[in-house]
């Protein structure tokens, strides 16, 4: 398909929209990376920069919304252009949410560093972070390259994030049962894990929307929901019985 519209300013607008979204994506990626690093190194300063960085993402989203509305109003896009504009709007929303979770994660790092450390859980968390990071990167690649297969892969990767979340959930519950002093730290770690799991879901949605944008059809196969923490019960008896 030809990327050039007869009216070249239309193409310029579409390019602007895409570049805003990629900028946003880049920032979100950066935020998550910094949050991960801060978590890994218990670096409060770095966590603070993450807190500040979220504002820029929100600004970019506002700017993107404006551009998208302008295109809808002035160019009346159809077909692939229409799908691009509408999906960009939705993807931006997801990115913004991911940014919010990164910020929330950074905020909790502050608290955790004061509480007792759990090296084991943190390293699982960091792995989870890295997984989500790479998903965001791939999702943005799929978006910018209009690559439906890559997007499919991203959606698939969300399963691993969910599995890690399950593992962490179980692990932290166990910790909390073993020692009540661990409860406060564990809860924060649990919530960070929850953040990451939510981020994964958002990125999976981004991938799904990218697929629709590219093909014009919503992917038929339902993604496996790997998250089953909602059904998880660990009895004290089980642990003591071991």
């Amino acid at each position: 398909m030809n990327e050039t519209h007869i009216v070249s300013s239309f193409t310029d607008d579409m390019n602007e929209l895409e570049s805003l979204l990629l900028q946003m994506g880049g920032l979100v990626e950066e935020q998550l990376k910094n949050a991960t690093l801060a978590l890994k190194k218990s670096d409060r300063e770095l966590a603070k920069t993450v807190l500040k960085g979220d504002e820029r993402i929100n600004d970019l989203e506002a700017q993107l919304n404006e551009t998208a509305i302008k295109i809808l109003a002035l160019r009346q896009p159809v077909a692939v252009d229409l799908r691009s504009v509408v999906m960009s709007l939705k993807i931006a929303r997801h990115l913004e949410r991911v940014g919010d979770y990164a910020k929330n994660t950074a905020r909790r790092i502050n608290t955790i560093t004061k509480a007792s450390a759990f090296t084991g859980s943190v390293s699982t968390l960091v792995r989870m972070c890295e997984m989500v990071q790479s998903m965001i990167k791939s999702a943005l690649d799929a978006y910018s390259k209009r690559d439906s297969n890559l997007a499919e892969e991203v959606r698939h990767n969300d399963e691993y994030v969910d599995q890690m979340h399950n593992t962490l959930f179980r692990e932290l519950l166990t910790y909390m049962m073993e020692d009540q002093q661990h409860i406060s730290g564990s809860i924060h770690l649990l919530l960070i894990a929850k953040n990451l799991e939510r981020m994964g879901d958002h990125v999976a949605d981004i991938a799904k929307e990218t697929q629709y944008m590219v093909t014009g059809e919503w992917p038929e196969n339902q993604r496996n929901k790997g998250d089953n923490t909602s059904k998880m019960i660990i009895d004290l008896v089980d642990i003591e019985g071991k």
Partner: protein
Amino acid sequence: MELSMTLDATTKAPIMSAKNVDVFYGAKQAIDDVSLDIAENQITAFIGPSGCGKSTFMRCLNRMNDTISSAKVTGDIRFAGQDIYSSKVDVVALRKRIGMVFQKANPFPKSIFDNVAYGPRIHDLAESKDHLEDIVVTSLKRAGLYDEVADRLDESGTGLSGGQQQRLCIARAIAVDPQIILMDEPCSALDPIATAKIEELMEQMKEDYTIVIVTHSMAQAARVSNKTAFFHLGKLIEFDETDTIFTNPANTLTQNYISGRIG
């Protein structure tokens, strides 16, 4: 690429169906192997760049191409199962069943009443003077024009505004009670308000008539039609539900055309 150009079997039989239609103007081929079905009580839009053959194809449907001596139509076009190019077919009867509204509003330079009454008169549709009046008023009402002209039916039809003239032409077409109304770019000379009125009218008329519209405005096709056919260089490139065409067209040519890309 294999394209299914016909309707799925679940809908009822199409009121018109064309198979392998070719049209030649002298040696020049204007329509190349077009097959499509027109569903009853729906609005079918033909879109495509200038000279793509959409108007030519539409004019095959009521044999208006007969008036051009160099035009030759081959293939099979059926209206309610009958081959309209058969030698037994009375063109007058065909055109009575398949009315037409043209790009440029073309009221006769007669009174508004006579404009609408002309069709019923030549086809002897009215049993009496009162009946004729009844037909005229009903037609004008259906075309959404009656309220605007009720007190000046004896004034010239050419004195109306462009949009009113076009609605007068629609009323005139309706007056002979056709099954299908062909519209050849009916709004291309009208302002957006007049256009909107005609589009609204089409939406209402859909209940009683089958409408085929040729339009340059893709937005109009998107707004009014149920099905859209995209023509390019005399070929039917894509024919599908309008929402599919405008959100996810199957063919790159269609995509490029409707999204304003260099094709």
